[in-house]
């Protein structure tokens, strides 16, 4: 069941359909769990779906396959997104998704690599994924393994100083097998990112740190695919995709609402949200 042999999904229409399915699963998981991070799981869904299903080589039956591409969800609170994707990819039976946030569940509130095979490293404390991604890319380089490493960060997350330590490392060691994504949804728990602790100008900051920077609409599948292709073609430096996204994307009453950063939908909200996604 190696995805390479199964075939990747590169058709834009199919990927959009898949992203819809993933959003529905996220909402179902969160509603069943009764808690969790809705807004940031939905904002990063299109990019994550494109990375997993159009780009990455992996084998759900052999999660430690040494030639697999690596995916690190540095913004670990979007765990429901990762679990929905992994369930779809066949890492575990889909009914496992109902165990989100339950005692002794492989689906911990934030990704835990010792609980769930296929999670590359535990995340949740923000700002740490890019360092681990660098380490993986350097290790793969020592083995002459061309596997690629993807790392999705939140925009609020990059307020963490370690992100910029790691950003220097990626450029210093010319890690061009690394593609980072900033899920730029503009909101963090306490309010708008620019109001809490400004991170602008994002493009210039990453460029100044020696990165190849691509700005896209993070919900436009054509733009996402073309950015991922461009990242793959870029040699001698790491690439960051700054994906302008909408927090809570796909459900009108969640969109751009800071209140839904860390709150799960109620059953009534869930019913309405499902309808919107079906019609969207």
């Amino acid at each position, binding site marked *: 069941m190696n995805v390479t042999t199964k075939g990747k999904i590169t058709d834009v229409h199919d990927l959009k359909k898949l992203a819809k399915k993933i959003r529905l699963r996220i909402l179902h998981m969160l509603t069943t769990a009764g808690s969790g991070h809705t807004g940031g799981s939905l904002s990063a869904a299109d990019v994550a779906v494109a990375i997993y299903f159009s780009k990455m080589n992996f084998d759900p039956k052999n999660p430690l396959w040494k030639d697999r591409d690596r995916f690190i969800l540095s913004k670990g609170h979007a765990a429901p997104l990762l679990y929905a994707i992994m369930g779809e990819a066949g890492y575990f039976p889909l009914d496992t998704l109902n165990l989100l946030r339950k005692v002794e569940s492989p689906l911990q509130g934030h990704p835990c690599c010792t609980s769930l095979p296929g999670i590359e490293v535990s995340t949740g404390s923000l700002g740490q994924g890019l360092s681990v991604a660098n380490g993986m890319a350097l290790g793969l380089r*020592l083995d002459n393994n061309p596997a690629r490493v993807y790392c999705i960060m939140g925009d609020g997350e990059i307020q963490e100083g370690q992100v910029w330590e790691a950003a220097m490392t990626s450029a210093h060691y010319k890690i061009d097998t690394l593609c980072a994504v900033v899920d730029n949804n503009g909101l963090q728990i306490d309010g708008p990112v620019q109001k809490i602790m400004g991170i602008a100008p994002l493009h210039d900051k990453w460029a100044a740190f020696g990165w190849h920077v691509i700005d896209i609409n993070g919900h436009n599948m054509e733009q996402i695919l073309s950015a991922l292709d461009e990242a793959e073609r870029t040699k001698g430096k790491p690439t960051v995709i700054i994906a302008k996204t909408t927090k809570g994307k796909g459900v009108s009453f969640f969109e751009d609402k800071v209140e839904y950063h860390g709150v799960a939908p109620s059953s009534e909200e869930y019913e309405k949200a499902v309808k919107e996604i079906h019609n969207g």
Partner: protein
Amino acid sequence: MGERKQQSAVSSQQSAVGAYGNTPERKPKATRDEYGEVLLELGEKRSDIVALDADLSCSTKTNKFAKAFPERFFNMGIAEQDMIGTAAGLALTGKIPFASTFAVFETGRAWDQIRLTVCYSNTNVKLVATHGGITVGEDGASHQALEDIALMRALPNMTVIVPADAAETASVIKTITDYKGPVYVRLGRAKVPYIVPDDYQFEIGKALVLHIGKDVNIVAAGIMVSAAKRAAELLSKDGIDAGVINMSTIKPLDGATLLKAAKKSKLIITAEEHSIIGGLGSAVSEFLSENYPVPVKRIGIQDTFGCSGPSDELLKFHGLTAEDIVKTVKTALKK
């Protein structure tokens, strides 16, 4: 009878290797110097060993490895948090990363990174820190790690080791290379006398018993083992039978050996170049209070920061000499 036998075994060992375990071939040596040499030696044998440092490779001695294997050495600049995450990533691709810097920065600056990406993720990262304790000397409190063992000991999955001398350091570094899982090793800046026998093989979780005493047993780690040994010699002149245990693995603690010692002497003294809060003294007290309560006296840094000065003067200032141990033992025995 058994005691006497053990005692004579110790004295013959002393005569063989000198009062401090030194010989003309074994002159006092810093554990960090030994680390640099052993890491180089292991690097020649194993291509999966990689090393990381945060701009202190000349002091931690990873510079020897760096010079021999530049492609397997990663200088991370002055960025300890990034160093730990990168080490975890390297471990996750099957490498055995040795990440080194001063103990205070390694464990303090990057504690959450160690917690999440090393311990919680259970990655095969070897944290080998140098400049532990007050014998850092003149640089003063900002550079003296006195809380590192407490910080590392509290983390699930972590093994914590404090070698007593260069020979033990060599054995420790080789042993942890073959052990899979997070390890913290605390090394020192200053030269230390040899303590362990020539043919000593370190085992994780196994204390080295120099002697079990019937009046008191001193459980020590790191540089304090040699102070404890000298204290035992001084005490024996006053007819006090003091044992010395080198508890180089602080986690997991060698409870069996501790129990044996406590049952024999009914008084335990701990000696460490670390805060009395959270380190060896705490670990020993926790174990004994639950398993075989006997009086315990902790020698260490008394809940304070260090200060600048030559290391031998600092040891006196903080009450970490053999004479201080003797005084503590005698006071405790009077009670």
